[in-house]
């Protein structure tokens, strides 16, 4: 009886299996493993015109009016004021460090003009345990997290207090304490790294946010990162700052599709496009993206539309490839700092007097940090040999000893006095 029933079960199972295979094979839908889809008998090429472009999410209009009241995140007043103060502080620091480069006091600088809201808005939506990978124009994020003016200046000077020990160019900040991974110049390399970090942080209620520009999104590493994040299901937020230019290259020469956001769904990523000049919109997107990434353990792509108001860097004169009228338009009609100020003023959280006082205070603070930073000596010059490896291998020790002897002998030809001993 038992034997019989077993064979009956087997028979039934086999029958079911063959019916299954049969239904699958006879099914109307295509069975290719590469895509789950339907047939069509109409030959049709798809292009970006086949879909509506992805809309830009906003909370405020250009005058700082909230358009749909339910979309206002209703942030605490002190948070809103802190956001604004950070944006202005960032502007003051940019102004002074930019000028100091012009005077030859630091070797290089990059400003953040026009993109302040995307930095502060996204940073405010995250917590300190979330890991940040940045490109280089995200100084507001670091500022929001608590990096001090002195720490910024020290890095730009590569002085004895620079956490990076004077190894990298100015604006290549990093802070272990603040979970802000040290910036490097090669574009987009941080994207797949952010994915790997997010994989390590799976199921820990933390996310990784990775910032990059519209130009960097053209690198192969961006493709790698999007695809890895989607297939390996990593809680990472890709935050693209689409500011219209990669140095002199306008977006029309950067991509043929609907910006960066349109790439997201093609990788199977939750995607949103946001007004990068609207700090409340950026805040909302990042908050929701973090919630989603943690809940689903999946990546999100945020494309923040904005405009690079400053030159690319101190080595660039942007009037060579764009009109100053265009820049002026963004500065006067749609500037993220102004937009938040209008909003605050409407809520009586800010006024002209507070503005004046805060401007004065920030300038004083930045100058103070600047002067301090300038006075500090550089680290020991022998630091050049440290941190290549965890422990110095013999061949490096040999090179260090040789150089020490040489410098001792020819010291008048080296700037030893600028370095600590």
């Amino acid at each position: 009886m038992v034997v019989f029933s077993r064979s009956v079960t087997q028979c039934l199972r086999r029958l079911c299996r063959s019916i299954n295979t049969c239904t699958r094979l006879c099914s109307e839908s295509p069975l290719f493993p590469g895509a789950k889809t339907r047939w069509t008998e109409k030959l049709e090429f798809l292009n970006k015109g086949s879909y509506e472009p992805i809309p830009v999410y906003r909370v405020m209009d250009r005058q700082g009016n909230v358009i749909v009241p339910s979309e206002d995140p209703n942030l605490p007043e002190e948070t809103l004021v802190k956001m604004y103060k950070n944006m202005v502080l960032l502007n003051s620091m940019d102004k002074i460090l930019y000028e100091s480069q012009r005077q030859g006091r630091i070797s290089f600088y990059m400003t953040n003009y026009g993109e302040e809201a995307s930095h502060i808005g996204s940073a405010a939506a995250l917590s300190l345990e979330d890991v940040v990978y940045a490109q280089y124009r995200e100084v507001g994020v670091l500022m929001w997290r608590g990096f001090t003016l002195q720490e910024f200046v020290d890095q730009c000077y590569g002085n004895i207090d620079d956490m990076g020990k004077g190894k990298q160019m100015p604006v290549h900040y990093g802070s272990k304490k603040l979970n802000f991974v040290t910036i490097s110049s090669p574009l987009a390399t941080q994207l797949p790294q952010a994915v790997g970090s997010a994989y390590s942080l799976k199921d820990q209620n933390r996310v990784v946010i990775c910032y990059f520009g519209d130009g960097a999104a053209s690198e192969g590493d961006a493709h790698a990162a999007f695809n890895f994040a989607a297939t390996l299901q990593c809680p990472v937020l890709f935050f693209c700052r689409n500011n219209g230019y990669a140095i002199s290259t306008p977006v029309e020469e950067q991509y043929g599709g609907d910006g960066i956001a349109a790439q997201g769904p093609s990788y199977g990523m939750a995607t949103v496009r946001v007004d990068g000049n609207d700090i409340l919109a950026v805040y909302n997107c990042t908050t929701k993206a973090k919630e989603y990434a943690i809940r689903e353990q999946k990546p999100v792509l945020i494309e923040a539309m904005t405009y690079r108001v400053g030159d690319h860097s101190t080595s660039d004169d942007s009037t060579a490839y764009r009109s100053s009228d265009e820049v002026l338009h963004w500065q006067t009609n749609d500037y993220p700092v102004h937009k938040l100020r209008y909003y605050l003023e409407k809520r009586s959280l800010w006024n002209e007097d507070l503005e004046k006082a805060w401007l004065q205070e920030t300038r004083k603070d930045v100058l103070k940090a600047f002067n301090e930073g300038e006075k500090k000596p550089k680290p020991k010059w022998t630091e050049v040999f440290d941190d290549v490896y965890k422990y110095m291998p013999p061949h490096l020790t040999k090179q260090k000893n040789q150089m020490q002897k040489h410098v001792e002998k020819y010291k008048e030809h080296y700037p030893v006095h600028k370095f600590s001993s």
Partner: protein
Amino acid sequence: MSINKVCTRCVRKLLRREVKLLNSKRNHFVYTPDTTVPVKGDRLEMNMYQAINNALDTVLGTDKSSIIFGEDVGFGGVFRCTVGLRDKYGKQRVFNTPLCEQGIIGFGIGAAVMGTTAIAEIQFADYIFPAFDQIVNEAAKYRYRSGGQFDCGKLTIRAPCGAVGHGALYHSQSPEAYFAHTPGLKIVVPRGPIKAKGLLLSCVRDPDPCLILEPKVLYRKAVEEVPVDDYQLPIGRADVLVEGSDLTLIGWGTQVHVLKEVAELAKKELDISCEVIDLVSILPWDVDTVCKSVKKTKRALISHEAPLTSGFGAELVATIQEECFLHLEAPIARVTGFDTPFPHVYEPFYIPTKWRCFEAVQQMFDY
């Protein structure tokens, strides 16, 4: 013992001999197993892929944060190195990635930055170049550029390398010299199973990013009695495999076995006593062991499969010349692959065979 068992053993023995004969005809070298064993304890006969698999198993078993990933590693890898690991440790720890080398290494760096032990596989060393930027500009410079705040020391990259008989341009390359020019990176090449396990375990636990280039021709061919216990072999130290007094032969990976044959040939035909050194570690490399040997023998021959110009042999020549100038009695010889891409049907004429090495030895003593 039953007759059946005896018979099976006989057949197996005969087969093995047959395979060895076939191999020696097909390959350009005769593999000689290591007889010195680094640690006491149980040993098991393993070929090189099994030894690597055993090392990876040891890592996953001892280090809960460790992950293994790359193209096709999930089902066991195209060279069987990761067989059984996904079943044993789960697909969160042993998994396939999309087919993208720059992604694999970037991903590995990011995981390592968070403190995860990341073991990345590049399917063939020939395909490591898409990840060159991530390795050279990122992995190698991570600690330095951040002032020691961040590092990716927990990253290890495994890549099968070297000639395999028929691999042509993109399944034969030995790219060590490209990476040897990269401060911040460590590079090792094992010559057999015992070495492969010990070096891999060292690389994984080393605080710096490591690249381990595994000569793929040895995966099945090289069989040794490998300790089953956990052990590590030093990075940065060369092995003197054969002691000699007249000439130092230096190589790494498969070429070590060629050089051992050359030493025998030189002894037999020319009565020249060769010292054979396996460099083991390309970066940092063991200047002391090499120079000590050359000062004794007064002659050096370096041999590698990679092309001559700017091959790692050039670095050895320059250093030996500088350190051993007064001891040298003949110019330092290099027997290497030619400055051509690695060809398919011409492989027997491309590789630095024992006969090319032997002729170079002759010439050095006619100098």
